[in-house]
């Protein structure tokens, strides 16, 4: 039970906006020691897991290429394209991305998309440009809000699209856990029952994007 002190450290640290690396390290030491491990064992366990999880940081390999493209005017080109399309709006761009990304993820092509490779260089500048093309220069907070919505569309689409594909990690995990408890299910059954939630996720988020688009319009009019 005492190990829950580690969770408390995380919650307090994140709420107080202390440097997250300090928060995580402290939480590991507090939670580990309170849970009965000695200090050196905690550091070793942390180091071992850190080393085993290096693969999550491999995505940063794409940043030099993305940066080079930005240097050559990628964001500006994306903006130019959007300003020319009269129908383009924050809603139409983000809603289209949401739909396409979700369908593509459902087909198992989960790497088509991503915060570093699609949202920062292309989708967020397009959404901002669509608003600016219609309403003129935006305030800083409004531009930030549009960018944040672009990142959110990526997450919602990915999370609630990928489970429709049979060979994705979460489906295999479910199959494994149920199997250990003597229940055999086929991955395709699990994917099938992910569809109602996927449809609901799209409808809910698309509706919210619609109202967000209206809010952008109203904010720029005043």
């Amino acid at each position, binding site marked *: 039970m005492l190990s829950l002190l580690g*969770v408390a450290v995380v919650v307090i640290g994140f709420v107080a906006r202390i440097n997250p690396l300090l928060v995580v*390290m402290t939480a590991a030491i507090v*939670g580990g020691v309170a849970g009965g491990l000695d200090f050196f064992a905690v550091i070793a366990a942390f180091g071992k897991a850190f080393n085993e999880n290096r693969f999550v940081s491999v995505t*940063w390999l794409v940043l030099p290429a993305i940066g080079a493209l930005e240097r050559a005017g990628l964001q500006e080109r994306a903006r130019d394209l959007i300003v020319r399309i009269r129908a383009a709006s924050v809603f139409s761009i983000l809603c289209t991305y949401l739909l396409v990304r979700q369908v593509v993820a459902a087909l198992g092509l989960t790497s088509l998309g991503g915060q570093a490779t699609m949202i920062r260089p292309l989708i967020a500048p397009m959404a901002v440009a669509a608003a600016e093309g219609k309403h003129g220069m935006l305030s800083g907070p409004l531009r930030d809000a549009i960018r944040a919505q672009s990142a959110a569309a990526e997450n919602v689409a990915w999370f609630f699209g990928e489970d429709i594909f049979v060979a994705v990690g979460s489906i295999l995990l479910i199959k494994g856990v149920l199997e250990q408890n003597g229940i055999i299910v086929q991955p395709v059954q699990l994917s099938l029952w992910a569809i109602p939630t996927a449809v609901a996720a799209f409808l809910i988020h698309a509706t919210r994007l619609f109202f967000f688009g209206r809010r952008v319009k109203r904010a720029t009019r005043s």
Partner: protein
Amino acid sequence: MIGLGAVYGITGVMFAIIAVMSAADRDNPKRWSNAGFWGLFAASFLFGDRLGDFGNGLLVLAMVAIAGTVGLGLARPATTAPEERQILARKFGNTIFMPALAIPVVTVIGSLTFKYSSLIDPMQVTLVALALAALVALALARILLHQPVKAALQEGRRLMDLLGWAALLPQMLAALGAVFALAGVGTAISHIAAEIIPTGSRIAVIASYTFGMALFTAIMGNAFAAFPVMTIGIGLPLIVTKFGGNPAIMSAIGMLSGFCGTLTTPMAANFNLVPAALLGLENRYAVIKAQIPTAIILLAVNTVLMYALVFQK
């Protein structure tokens, strides 16, 4: 065979170059801090397997100490001005999208085809494909857009500095999850859940399962950690055994209820905090703020869906 070793080697070399460039950057008052941070990250990728568990732990402690006390500076390497970029964008036209689109396209093609190649470790096809995609994009930027590799690396450094601590956080949280598992955090939470879960009615049990999945996921930052605990603790004994629910439907919707939790938590740093840093947002929780209403409504919908679907005749 090309596998993790090669991918980590390339990543390590990239961070080593970024560290050296940081050290040489006299405009950054914290240049030694940046050089040390990225240099240690490079060392982790290049020599991590030879440092031993405790050695790796010390390496992390040193990185945390640098970022958490002295802090990292923000590099502003010489780059093109906005007006220049506008002119370049007109000049290159849509050619400029080719290297950008090459990244996802090469990653997808690679992850689908590399398993048939004996040259590549079949367990690591996606990571190898991603590394290859990054190199292809870099080469295309060099050939089609005349972007020198050195300039690309400086731009990479600019973006890494923009990320700063956020670049390390996903890996740190994965390690925290491992320590929490050792310390018994999961079992402690499932004990508490077992104490307070109402077992009487179907809807109460289902709501406990879906909301429990979301809450536990928000705490651990990962639905994969929550799923076994909640399913073995609540789902199987109560929804399936006691009330006769369908385990496939329960699990599918249960996992997606966990994903609702992922949308709300800074613990899922790579989805929620990293993009905010990458987009240079003022508020580090802005992406979470944009997602919370969707997460709450969808969690309620999931609960209703499970109630309506799980008890099949």
